[in-house]
């Protein structure tokens, strides 16, 4: 079976499942055309954020497209349940997150090779409280500006995305939910079904590991030389 036909089959399965949703009376529209226009007008400006968020969560463009498509159709099927139209964006992103988490859990429950690093216990990875700031910060001015500025000016968005994508799943998901999507720790705890303390420890490790990766990238790009060369200090 080709990937396209698999996707079509999958889409058909959940389209059938979604039709069982009973209608509510909260959102009202003049007619079906008005309902559809209202939905599409709000959806279209969110597409880049929906796709980007799904891509950070899944790391895979095809999977990200599947998650977004599924989430949007779920939202369309439940539109009558949306109580506050002003909350459409947050509501849609919440559906996206839940769609991803359901799929992620399904994948995690499948048997995998023992060597798969993403399924290794997240607590087994030592990120040792690394901070990028400690590597870059110097308590004096350099004639070309601070190393922090140099770091941010040379950091490409692609490099950051690459560093995020190398994080093991539990860390990446935690940091994306909090820093990209803006969920509270308690909400993440509820969404992932893990204790609050685990959310905190995963976030701490995610940040340390991310900063370590970014530092490695910066060093590869020559930042180490700048950091070591303190001769640039203002007289």
């Amino acid at each position, binding site marked *: 079976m080709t990937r396209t036909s698999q996707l079509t089959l999958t889409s058909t399965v959940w389209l059938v499942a979604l039709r069982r949703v009973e209608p509510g009376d909260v959102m009202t529209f003049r007619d079906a055309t008005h309902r559809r226009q209202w939905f599409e007008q709000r959806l279209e400006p969110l597409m880049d954020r929906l796709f980007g968020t799904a891509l950070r969560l899944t790391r895979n*463009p095809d999977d990200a497209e599947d998650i977004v498509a599924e989430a949007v159709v779920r939202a369309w099927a439940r539109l009558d349940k949306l109580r506050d139209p002003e909350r459409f964006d947050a509501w849609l992103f919440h559906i996206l997150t839940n769609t991803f988490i359901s799929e992620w859990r399904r994948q995690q429950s499948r048997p995998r090779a023992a060597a798969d690093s993403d399924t290794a216990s997240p607590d087994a990875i030592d990120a040792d409280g690394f901070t990028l700031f400690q590597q870059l910060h110097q308590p004096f001015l350099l004639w070309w500006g601070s190393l922090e500025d140099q770091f941010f000016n040379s950091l490409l968005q692609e490099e950051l995305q690459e560093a995020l994508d190398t994080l093991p799943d539990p860390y990446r998901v935690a940091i994306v939910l909090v820093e990209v999507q803006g969920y509270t720790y308690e909400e993440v705890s509820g969404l992932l079904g893990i204790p609050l303390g685990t959310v905190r420890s995963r976030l701490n490790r995610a940040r340390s590991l991310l900063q370590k990766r970014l530092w490695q990238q910066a060093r590869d790009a020559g930042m180490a030389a700048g950091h070591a060369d303190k001769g640039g200090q203002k007289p």
Partner: protein
Amino acid sequence: MSPRDLNCEEVIERLFDYLDRELDHQQTADIEWHLSRCRDCFTRAEFEKRLRARVAASGTVKAPPRLYRRIVSLLDRFDDDEPGMSR
């Protein structure tokens, strides 16, 4: 509500809770009071804020046009099969 004095170690320990808006009003005021008076902690906080903003920006990526077309097609199919949803 007057802010309480915190030392640098306490501030750095709670910095991400502060940036993630996990602190209550009193705790937030305590951190902000310290940041307004301590250059080192302020610089660290600004660094983490900038990095956090870059991470947040990574959640916006140009969606392929085919994705929107696929969604429109799925919505059409959904509407066609759902009584009362056809336009």
